[in-house]
């Protein structure tokens, strides 16, 4: 009963088999397993979609085209022409996060994006990429993003530190947002579901019936909301990646 109602138990990572390389613990875990499943799913669906391409697409090809076109549309809207080389990157990020989130919605499947080690790495990678691309494209002029033009010199002493802090907090907020949304959503689902056994323990069979009738519609609603959040967070991550890339690609402002 304790494990059944513990909302954090679902996030526990367990080792599938031990693996040690040069003193580093690189065991294959449940988290790694579901990441591999997610990646294989994306590759599989896209391979099927592009297997026999025709001018008039069939259902599978349309799925791939809509999926890719959606991301390409975001990048084109935000970054315009200079963003074109980054469409595959944003597409990979979106697809991985979206599939990982959706896999997490199935009972007893593991949500890889509910761990900050995963989301934090993706966020740090994204911001590092922005810095590297910015330095390559603009050289030291990249640091102009900390000095907005048109601001009086006196105000710059306040504005520049704020800009620097806001830039440094980007990887934190980018990783935290995805992690906290997935964690929070799954904890909420589990807490609501835990009402049923709690009522059953407190009131017996009547409690079970009441819990089932009252809580079940609530859980269905929250689950539907979680599917929306799963898509929305992947979309937000992809879009914020584009917006941050704009600092490196866009005109100085």
């Amino acid at each position, binding site marked *: 009963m304790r494990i059944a109602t513990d909302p954090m138990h679902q996030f526990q990572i367990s080792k599938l088999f031990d693996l040690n390389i040069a003193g580093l613990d690189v065991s294959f875990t449940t988290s790694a397993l579901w990441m591999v499943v997610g990646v294989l799913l994306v590759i599989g669906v896209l391979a099927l979609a592009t297997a026999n391409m025709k001018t008039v697409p069939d259902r599978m090809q349309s799925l791939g085209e809509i999926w890719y076109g959606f991301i390409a549309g*975001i990048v084109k*809207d*935000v970054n315009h022409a200079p963003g074109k080389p980054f469409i595959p990157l944003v597409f990979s990020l979106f697809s991985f996060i979206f599939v990982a989130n959706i896999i997490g919605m199935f009972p007893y499947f593991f949500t890889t994006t509910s761990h900050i080690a995963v989301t934090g790495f993706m966020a740090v990678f994204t911001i590092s990429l922005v810095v590297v691309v910015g330095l390559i494209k603009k050289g030291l002029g990249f640091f102009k993003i900390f000095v907005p033009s048109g601001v009086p010199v006196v105000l710059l002493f306040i504005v520049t530190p704020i800009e620097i802090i806001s830039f440094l907090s980007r990887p*934190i*907020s980018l990783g*935290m*947002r995805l992690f*906290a*949304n997935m964690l*929070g959503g799954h904890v909420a689902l589990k807490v609501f579901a835990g009402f049923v056994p709690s009522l059953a323990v407190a009131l017996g069979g009547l409690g079970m019936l009441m819990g089932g009738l009252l809580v079940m519609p609530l859980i269905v609603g929250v689950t539907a909301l979680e599917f929306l959040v799963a898509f*929305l967070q992947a*979309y*937000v991550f992809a*879009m*914020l990646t584009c*917006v941050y890339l704009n600092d490196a690609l866009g005109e100085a402002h």
Partner: protein
Amino acid sequence: MEGLNYVGAGLACLAMLGAAIGVGNIFAAYLDGAMRNPSAAPQQFGNLIFGFAVTEALGIFGFAVALILIFAV
């Protein structure tokens, strides 16, 4: 003074209040504008989500403070 970190973690939930007001304002303003000029609404959907995400981040910082208070103090 044992257990005060749990009080602090509870207080950190007040961040939800600010995030709720902010996110509510964003969607209210979007709907307000979209009702007045529905044809211009789809182009602003990206901006809507961007504003939502940036505002929501501040509520999530409150969540981070709560986590730190419970597990790291």
